[in-house]
């Protein structure tokens, strides 16, 4: 009991330091400086904090997933997290407890991550089937649990399904910051083995890197990102932040630089998305994803449009463009 009490006091003081002393002060100053009231509202301050965290950890983990063609795992784990939220709400409703649903979501999603990884290890490859089974199974468990009580929790579940700025309570914001720190630390420490495995899995095994262990780590970190981002993005759209900013940044040369590029493009999407969502009172998750897709399209069309303009106008540069194309074509020889 004493441990629980001291733990919750510690959590409270961490929350105060992060939300009020550091982030709150900075955002208040920004609000005064720009004259924009929105930055001064505590709930919007929390939403922007969440936006920054999601933009950071999504591409950080997503870069490895996308280039291993594992993008679907985000969706699968999001649905497991949904089952976890439902389980938390169910337990709270049935036993009168007060467990934050994000905690149960985290546990269920992490277990599902290890389950997917085990299925993959035995099936030998990232079979869609393994992912589809875990995805559908989790969602089935979630939907059964939601309807197993008198309907009270069905209301609470909606905000997790579609995401909302209002879901980012003080507790949730603190959880999000802590989870983001864990993900960032995890990727920083495991960057080299993860990069090696992403580029050349067999070579990594030959070099003595424990591929299985790092695959599990990546799956669990994905689960953490999904749970962290779920409150704003919603279960159905959460995987987007693992994929779209990464896809937008693939034209950047250098893996490390493309991760940073992904984080920057992610920031543009989440901050703009949260702002638009508040201004027009529309769903935050959907708005963020639409902005991210717009960024992707601009990134895809922009360089091509520029290239075709350049090749029309200057002879020297058009030679460079042709050179690049030729380079691309001779690899099939």
């Amino acid at each position: 009991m004493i441990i629980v009490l001291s733990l919750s006091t510690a959590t409270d003081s961490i929350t105060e330091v992060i939300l009020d002393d550091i982030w709150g002060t900075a955002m208040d100053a920004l609000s005064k400086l720009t004259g924009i009231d929105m930055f001064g509202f505590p709930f919007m301050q929390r939403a922007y904090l969440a936006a920054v965290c999601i933009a950071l950890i999504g591409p950080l983990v997503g870069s490895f997933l996308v280039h291993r063609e594992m993008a679907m795992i985000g969706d699968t784990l999001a649905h497991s997290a949904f089952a976890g939220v439902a389980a938390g709400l169910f337990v709270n409703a049935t036993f009168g407890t007060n467990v934050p649903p994000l905690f149960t979501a985290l546990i269920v999603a992490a277990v599902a991550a290890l389950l997917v990884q085990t299925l993959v290890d035995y099936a030998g490859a990232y079979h869609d089937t393994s992912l589809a089974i875990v995805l559908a199974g989790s969602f089935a468990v979630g939907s059964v649990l939601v309807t197993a009580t008198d309907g009270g929790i069905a209301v609470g579940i909606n905000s997790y399904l579609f995401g909302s700025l209002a879901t980012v309570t003080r507790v949730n914001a603190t959880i999000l910051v802590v989870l983001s720190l864990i993900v960032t630390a995890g990727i920083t420490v495991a960057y080299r083995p993860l990069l090696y495995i992403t580029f050349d899995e067999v070579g990594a095994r030959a070099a003595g890197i424990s591929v299985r262990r790092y695959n599990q780590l990546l799956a669990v970190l994905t689960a953490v990102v999904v749970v962290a981002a779920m409150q704003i993005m919603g279960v159905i759209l959460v995987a987007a932040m693992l994929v779209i900013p990464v896809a937008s940044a693939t034209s950047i040369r250098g893996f490390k630089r493309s991760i940073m590029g992904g984080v920057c493009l992610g920031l543009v999407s989440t901050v703009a998305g949260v702002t638009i969502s508040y201004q027009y009172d529309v769903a935050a998750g959907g708005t963020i994803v639409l902005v991210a897709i717009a960024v992707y399209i601009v990134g895809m069309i922009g360089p091509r449009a520029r290239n075709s303009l350049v090749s029309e106008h200057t002879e020297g540069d058009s030679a460079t463009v042709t050179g690049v194309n030729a380079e691309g074509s001779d690899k099939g020889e």
Partner: protein
Amino acid sequence: MAVIEVQEVTFAYGTRPVVEQVSLGVESGEFLGLVGPNGSGKTTLLELMIGLRPADSGSITLFGDPAQASTQGDRLGYVPQDVANAKDEMPITVREAVRMGRYPQKLVGRFTDADRDAVESALQRVEIADLADRRVGRLSGGQRQRVFIARALASDADLLALDEPTVGVDAESREAFYDLLNELNEDGMTIILIEHDIGIVTTHASKIACLNQELFFHGDPEAFVETNALADAYGGSQSILQHNH
């Protein structure tokens, strides 16, 4: 000194036998060409030799340790099959890929000058220093092969294992690539090469192992050309194929 020692090794995928009772040793400084028809178990044998798979029976040592438990991953450079077509969209640069050679020794922590020097001299050794900041996915097949060799050199590897490295590489680059392998071999690198072009293997390798489930031949290229091992191994494969259909 034997770098690899394979003794009476057998391996099967489920009930389908792939490698049967194979014994052979690879000496330090040797250039071993591994030949055999498609589906003859060449890749599996190579994977067994470098500890990527456990054998069903028999024993394999790599650098004197049981291959599966070997902790000397930095002494081994591996060039996988089909690198010419893999990972086109990954935005990794040549230098980033070659730096991986240092990773087994340094999974975390800052790169020292020695690490950076090893990477730069590996890039120069295989003559791709001018491509260092290019994306691997934008290189030609022949250039990509060199990236993988450079990665092995950066790790100070003394054993190079290559699985049909020149698939998808044009003839001219292929010739240059095998000349490079010979140069590395002369400098003391032990090489194991799987290659379907028997002409190339007999020209460049110092030892030949001819495999079709069982080991049909193991010896000098000159002796290999004179024996019937090739016909035996490939003839065997044709009858196996007919049985399967």
